[in-house]
């Protein structure tokens, strides 16, 4: 409890979750959008997904540092880095999901007289939701890590509390904050997994 109040963990948790959800919101938006666009434009797909892959290979600390000159320090670059990191799994899964809808469904949709657009939004997209949810689940874990690192560049959040603990060599703070971050990560991953499973169950098979 001492650690909790001294490190303002309630506030830190709220900051943390705020960054996490803002970042996730935009990465889902952008990721799905990029996934749909790359699906619609196959030529674009390889280059876009490859560049996202390149971003993905940059270590997260390095990415944060690279963004400093553009976005300064604090919440901004942390959220941007989280988004950059999380777009790939979502975009890639969206793309893969849209591309791999079983042929029979597409065939029947065509035969029933759905337009290309209707096939995309009424058939392909809903049937891709389990895979897209899987991508988002990976993104949650990525974002959690990057947001925690944000503590290094004065973004606040639980990362800041961890930094304090490390600098003060305060084992209690480190352990409690660390365990708390871990617990949140496990819970969020669990929720994301549940959503994924609901989609899977609902769409059969």
């Amino acid at each position, binding site marked *: 409890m001492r650690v909790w109040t001294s490190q303002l963990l309630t506030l830190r948790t709220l900051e943390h979750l705020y960054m996490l959800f803002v970042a996730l919101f935009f990465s889902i938006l952008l990721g799905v959008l990029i996934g749909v666009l790359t699906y619609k434009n196959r030529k674009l797909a390889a280059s876009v997904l490859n560049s996202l892959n390149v971003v993905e290979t940059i270590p997260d600390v390095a990415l944060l540092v690279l963004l400093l000159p553009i976005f300064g320090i604090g919440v901004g670059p942390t959220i941007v880095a989280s988004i950059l990191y999380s777009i790939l799994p979502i975009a890639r899964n969206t793309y893969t999901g849209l591309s791999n809808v079983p042929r*029979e*469904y597409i*065939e*029947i*949709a*065509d*035969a*029933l*007289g*759905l*337009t290309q657009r*209707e096939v995309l939004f*009424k*058939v392909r997209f*809903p*049937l891709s*939701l389990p895979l897209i949810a899987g991508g988002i689940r990976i993104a949650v874990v990525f974002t959690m890590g990057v947001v925690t690192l944000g503590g290094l560049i004065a973004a606040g959040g639980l990362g800041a509390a961890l930094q304090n603990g490390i600098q003060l060599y305060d084992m209690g703070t480190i352990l409690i904050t660390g365990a708390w971050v871990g617990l949140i990560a496990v819970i969020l991953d669990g929720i994301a997994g549940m959503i994924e499973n609901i989609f899977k169950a*609902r*769409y*059969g*098979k």
Partner: protein
Amino acid sequence: MVSRKPFDRIDSCRLEKVTKKYGDRFAVKNLNLEIQGGELLILIGKSGSGKTTALRMINRLIEPDSGSISVNGIDVREFDPILLRRNIGYVIQNIGLLPHLRVSENVGLILKLESWKEEKIRERVRYLLNLVSLPPQIFMERYPHELSGGQQQRVGLARAMAMNPPLFLMDEPFGALDPLLRSQLQDEFCKIKKELGRTIVFVTHDINEAFRLGDRIAVMNNAELVQVGTPEELIFSPVNDMVAEIVDSKRKYRHIDALKVRDIMQPLEKRYILHPGLSAALALDYMAKVGLEVALVFWNPENIGRVYLNDVLNAVFSGKSLEEAAKPLPLFSPEIPLLEALARLKAEGESMGLVLEADKPAGILFSDRVLENLI
């Protein structure tokens, strides 16, 4: 979106010199086929014979390389493919119910895209589910994976009927079902078909299904049409061994239940008919001269009798008139099933019956000749 139906009914659907190649291989080669309004035409052949390709070219899922396909004389390429397909029911073997949509949403999908009102859609879906023997209150809200294979196939059929299309394309719709269920669905389908009176093109590789459902059967092999005709025509005059093998002509009797009186009756030649005014003696002379064992005495459609040579002979000796010697004989319409006619002959202890078409004698059915024609 207000859509215009490309056609309300089918007078004819024609495929003319239709060719489709994949690489060097012909999928369909120079196919000429006319589907008549209201008939169920079977396309039968081995896999790879081009039957499915031919089917899919009708609703433009596949575009032919050359040749033309027309509905009521209008080339299908003049129709918007979306409107065309919404006006043609389509059912496939693996059904393709969309797993993320409830039964009601699957059946009502196109109605919704056509901006029908929610209440009207539900009403229509209920009607269609009843038609395919699925109680709507039980099945409307289910997801496809909560249904058995047979139930899914019924929903697929209901979905194809949603827009009330005048033409159906069916690609082995019962192929994935176990035999018992298949025959049950075939029976139900026959009933629905009669009620709706639609034009149907039906792909199958099962000859029994073809005989059971088809008005006419088109046999395809190696991308080409080999023969098209009624089941009886294929059985009795297959153009080659391949068709004979498919329809199993060597064991024709197996298909005796597909036959109608028309297929077996002998054409009625004039020489069989005796004028009622004729005296028994003259009739005897005539029959002896022409070599008739039996003859018909024809007054009018309500009054026809048959006389055997012996009857006439007896009449001559006992001084009876031809009219008194003649006995009434069973009358049949050419369209009734052969088996039914044979059963009646047997019950009445007769060996021959007269086939009347539009009140005119059209032929004679001899029970002892049936077997000859079959073997």
